[in-house]
């Protein structure tokens, strides 16, 4: 039995779900994701919200670092910009969520493009340092700007009027007609956003734009001589990446009734890099699975940390971090390609079956 479909047209070679097995996988995935919010409890839904936010943010990170090879430690700054834009537009100006969210993405993309010129001159660690500078700058500006404008260092997000509470008068709101709870509506909204982000990322990966990014990553001089405008390619990568980061930040604002600047620090930036590497750099698959694994494993490590004999003064987060990151290091030593490596091996096994290779 042939395990591969015979490709007879170039269009088929570009399809996302080329054969029966991929299509079956898609249907199964839709069913599982569709049933999940009705089976999961409120804790499960909260974790899934975080997971879907991380998926969108990690896709942004992957486009910049995985595709275009630009190392950025400023990812959290773009999430912060998205989150605060959405919170201010929604809370102070009363914009509907479906309008505030893309604007949040665009604001982050605008600031992201301002880092572009640095990326034209700097590479690798040097660029990483510049982006750390950006992270602190954005943090400083938001902190002081909020202090001046509102006299407080937190913002309330009118997430509840959008998703949880019945508000039929609002423009573009989900009606709470009792069939779906706010958390479930938020889940489906986030699922659509994450699916859309993955689709866009996959489109970039299989088209000219993505190839140009990867060419700049692998050899920028050769790319230029071939006709790739490296400067423009880096700009596009920064723009798209920070747009997705802004969207992820906006989603974060939706999922939390009150936001502060605390979570948007260097730890979050490093977390996104860890997701990209854990998943498998350079692929959309890696961004999605790296983000999901990261978000699901941290609470698990927290649970495990409670059971292990750490000193009582260690907080549960400390314990989780102490367990998670060494485990991540070990995993990457044995599987440098990350989750992608495992998936490729499984796929190869079934493609070659019943032979070993």
């Amino acid at each position: 039995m042939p395990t591969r479909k015979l490709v007879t047209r170039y269009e088929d070679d570009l399809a996302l779900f080329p054969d029966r097995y991929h299509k079956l996988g898609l249907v199964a995935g839709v069913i599982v994701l569709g049933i999940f919010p009705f089976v999961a409890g409120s804790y499960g839904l909260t974790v899934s919200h975080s997971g879907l936010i991380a998926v969108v943010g990690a896709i942004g990170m992957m486009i910049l670092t995985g595709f275009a090879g630009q190392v950025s430690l400023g990812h959290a700054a773009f999430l912060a910009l998205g989150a605060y834009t959405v919170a201010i537009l929604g809370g102070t100006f009363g914009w509907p969520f479906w309008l505030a969210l893309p604007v949040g993405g665009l604001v982050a993309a605008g600031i992201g493009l301002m880092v572009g010129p640095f990326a034209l001159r700097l590479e690798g660690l040097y660029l990483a340092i510049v982006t750390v500078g950006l992270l602190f700058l954005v943090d400083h500006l938001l902190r002081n700007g909020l202090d001046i404008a509102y006299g407080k260092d937190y913002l309330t997000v009118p997430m509840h009027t959008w998703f949880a509470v019945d508000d039929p008068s609002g423009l573009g709101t989900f009606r709470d007609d009792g069939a779906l709870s706010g958390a479930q509506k938020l889940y489906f909204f986030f699922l659509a956003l994450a699916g859309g982000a993955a689709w866009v990322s996959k489109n970039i990966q299989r088209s000219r734009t993505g190839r140009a990014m990867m060419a700049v990553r692998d050899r920028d001089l050769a790319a230029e001589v071939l006709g790739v405008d490296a400067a423009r390619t880096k700009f596009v990568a920064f723009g798209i990446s920070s747009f997705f980061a802004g969207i992820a930040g906006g989603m974060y604002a939706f999922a939390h009734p009150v936001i502060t600047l605390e979570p948007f620090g260097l730890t979050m930036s490093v977390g996104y890099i860890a997701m990209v590497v854990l998943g498998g750099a350079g692929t959309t698959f890696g961004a999605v699975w790296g983000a999901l694994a990261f978000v699901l494993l941290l609470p698990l490590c927290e649970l495990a940390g409670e059971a292990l004999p750490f000193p009582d003064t260690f907080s549960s987060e400390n314990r989780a971090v102490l367990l998670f990151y060494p485990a991540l290091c070990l995993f990457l030593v044995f599987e440098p390609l990350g989750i992608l490596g495992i998936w490729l091996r499984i796929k190869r096994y079934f493609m070659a079956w019943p032979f070993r290779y």
Partner: protein
Amino acid sequence: MLTVTDLELSFAGVKALDKVSLMVPGGSLYAVIGPNGAGKTSLFNCISGAYRPQAGRIQFSGRDLVGRRPHHIAALGVARMFQHPALFQQLTVQENLLLGRHHRYRTGWWQDALWTRGARAEEVAHREKVEEIIDFLDLERVRKTPVMILPYGILKRVELGRALCAEPRLLLLDEPAAGLNQEETEALARYMLDVKEQMGITQVLIEHELRFVLELADRVAVLDFGRKIADGLPRTVARDPSVAEAYLGGAA
């Protein structure tokens, strides 16, 4: 076709190119030879825009190339094969070849991101063109193989293919036969003659292997310490005493 006039390039006192002038006729196979450090690759870097010469002109089909950025020069129809294969390691052969066609795409990044009908049609059209080159260079077997794991001889062929995919009018070949065995060199010579005769592409070749140059090239220029010391038909250049001196040293 390509005219280089009084080209000068120096790096902090070292004259890499010293008043070099060349005239490459359209449709010809023009060879540039010379000992190591003679400035051959620097000349290519000036033509393709990677270096900016201090003085002199480079004209390609009546257009000045000096001062233009590399991707702009590529769009004018100049393609290049590097001395050490400069392929994109993590991409497949097919993706590398598609990158050769990069500047011929008309769709923008937003069309790619949204996978519009136009973006799809363009991908398919360019894929068809790439398949012609894959067929020409017998690369069918490695089409979907990542470049990283391919042997050197095939890498050279993939790189020639990537340059040809751009449908250039001028092809710069920097030591294409370096590191190839006898059979691979013969196959390469065959491809180069096909490129000249079937595709009508003008080629400028840098090469060390003298026999390869003398049998293939229509004209030969010899560089030594950044200066052109001879220029003419392969036979006459081979007998030129100053060429022998440059290669073998004055005492020989």
